């Protein structure tokens, strides 16, 4: 129970980012012609932001559903790596618990989980975190879809920065503490800038993050402890 509460507390700061992006998604989805119910159901069932943004943009452009499904697979393939990491910490949990927790493995839950300090009950901790993130994402989507006609488009656009601001704020403490992490982050960003010109829609993100991690693994360790 303590770990569950700890999970809720850990997720709280990121939730505002999730709600904000959820609102942006709700607005984009309704712009693309989805109803509020369809947009919210997509968030509740798929639970993968970037692929959902990709999907509604493709729907708006009349792209074939097969392309959307294949694109979604590639965009979300990085969750395989993330889930391997998460499941490694949940080794001793029951299969059903792991399969439920796997449903909400996403960039945010994974990052919070992997950067968190040691917990006595990782499954409850992740459960609390995922519950908060999932609720924020879905309610944000519904709010965005319903607010579609109320919020000025300029404010909706401004909210697009929210998730990036949250990502930056999660990354900065490590960047300040470790030159090596700084180097790895710059390397990965540059690789991704290059790759995003020749491929896109998530594939560049998968390859960049893997290339960055290979690069990092090949580098010698710092004498000062690396935050990991």
């Amino acid at each position, binding site marked *: 129970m303590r770990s569950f509460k700890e999970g809720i507390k850990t997720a709280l*700061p*990121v939730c*505002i980012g999730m709600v*904000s992006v959820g609102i942006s998604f709700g607005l984009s989805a309704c712009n693309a012609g989805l109803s509020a119910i*369809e947009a919210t159901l*997509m968030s509740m069932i*798929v*639970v*993968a932001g970037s692929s*959902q943004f990709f999907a509604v943009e493709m729907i708006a452009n009349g792209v074939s*559903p097969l392309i*959307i*499904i294949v694109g*979604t697979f590639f965009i*979300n393939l*990085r*969750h*395989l790596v993330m*889930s*391997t*990491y*998460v499941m*490694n910490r949940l*080794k001793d949990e029951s*299969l059903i618990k792991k*399969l439920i927790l*796997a*449903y909400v493995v996403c*960039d945010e839950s994974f*990052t919070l989980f992997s950067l968190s300090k040691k917990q006595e009950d990782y499954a409850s901790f992740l459960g609390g975190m995922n519950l908060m993130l999932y609720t924020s994402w879905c309610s944000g989507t519904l709010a965005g879809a319903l607010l579609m006609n109320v919020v000025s488009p300029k*404010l909706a*656009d*401004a*909210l*697009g*920065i*929210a998730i*990036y*601001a*949250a990502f*930056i*704020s999660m*990354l900065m*403490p490590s960047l300040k503490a470790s030159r090596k992490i700084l180097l*790895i*982050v*710059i390397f*990965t*960003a540059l*690789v*991704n*800038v290059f790759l*995003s010109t020749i491929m896109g829609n998530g594939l560049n993100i998968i390859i*960049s*993050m893997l290339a*960055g*991690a*290979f690069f*990092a*693994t090949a580098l010698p360790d710092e004498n000062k402890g690396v935050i990991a």
Partner: protein
Amino acid sequence: MNIYLLIFFMMLVTYIPRAFPALQSKKRKLSPYWERFLSFIPYTALAALIFPGILGIDSSTPIVGLVGGIAAVAASLFNFPVILVVALAVIAEMIVYIFI
């Protein structure tokens, strides 16, 4: 295709990679190399998700994302909590939109 069918298949192709590691045998132990490799993924994933995606939040004007990003970096340097960093970045964006 029906939108609900599309949502279902999107869920399927998303959930399979998420669930696969859970189905692996319980005693699975990664080698130190892969443990180390995976420990760097959070940083590289964040890096790849932020850049250059942040420049595309307003596809016609990359400066919008840039200003928001700089605001977020500046706020983070002061060790502000995430909520405040997000709020300041959004405010910075709204100011940018007043000027462009």
